[in-house]
């Protein structure tokens, strides 16, 4: 198990200034849906973006964190309908 804040902190440490939304999908504390909005994703492919988020989570992925559904966007790619989800 891993706390949502711990996931958010790890990602934000690697991607300063990013907006990170963490949703526990099952309530069990190990299946999460994570959305990261960062300017650093500009010009990056989906694979590159996902790697940028996986890297700081390397130690917990597959261990405390079983499953991670990931969405990565730049601020420009966020549509108004999504914004209510952003903290």
């Amino acid at each position, binding site marked *: 198990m891993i706390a949502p804040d711990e996931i958010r902190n790890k990602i934000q440490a690697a991607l300063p200034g990013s907006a990170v939304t963490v949703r526990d999908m099952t309530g069990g504390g190990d299946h999460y849906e994570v959305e990261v909005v960062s300017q650093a994703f500009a010009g990056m492919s*989906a*694979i590159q973006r*996902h790697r940028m988020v996986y890297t700081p989570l390397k130690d917990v992925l597959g261990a405390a964190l079983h*499953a991670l559904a*990931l*969405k990565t966007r730049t601020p420009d790619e966020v549509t108004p309908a999504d914004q209510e989800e952003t903290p």
Partner: protein
Amino acid sequence: MSRKVMDEIRSEIQEHPLVLYMKGTKEAPQCGFSATMVEVLSSYSLPIKDINVLEDPEKWAAVKEFSEWPTIPQIYVGGEFIGGCDIVREMHAKGELEPVLRKATESKD
């Protein structure tokens, strides 16, 4: 490593145009992400070579190292790593997956 698992992966992805490393089989996926992947890929009516990592822990570890990608499922098209579930689903939704699959399967004929 006594077994040459990395070499096995290398030949699997060269031999088959579309390879899916997953939990379970395409007939009986054992994980929601793997099930989604099978569902998306099946819509293209192309042969999928499924490899069940749950039956081969050594390969499970090796494939993550091979792609430098920490999660399962993973797909390889034409010998190239394409991504995990979220990326494939997104490419499918945007219509970007079909040309990639088409190209890889045609060049194999």
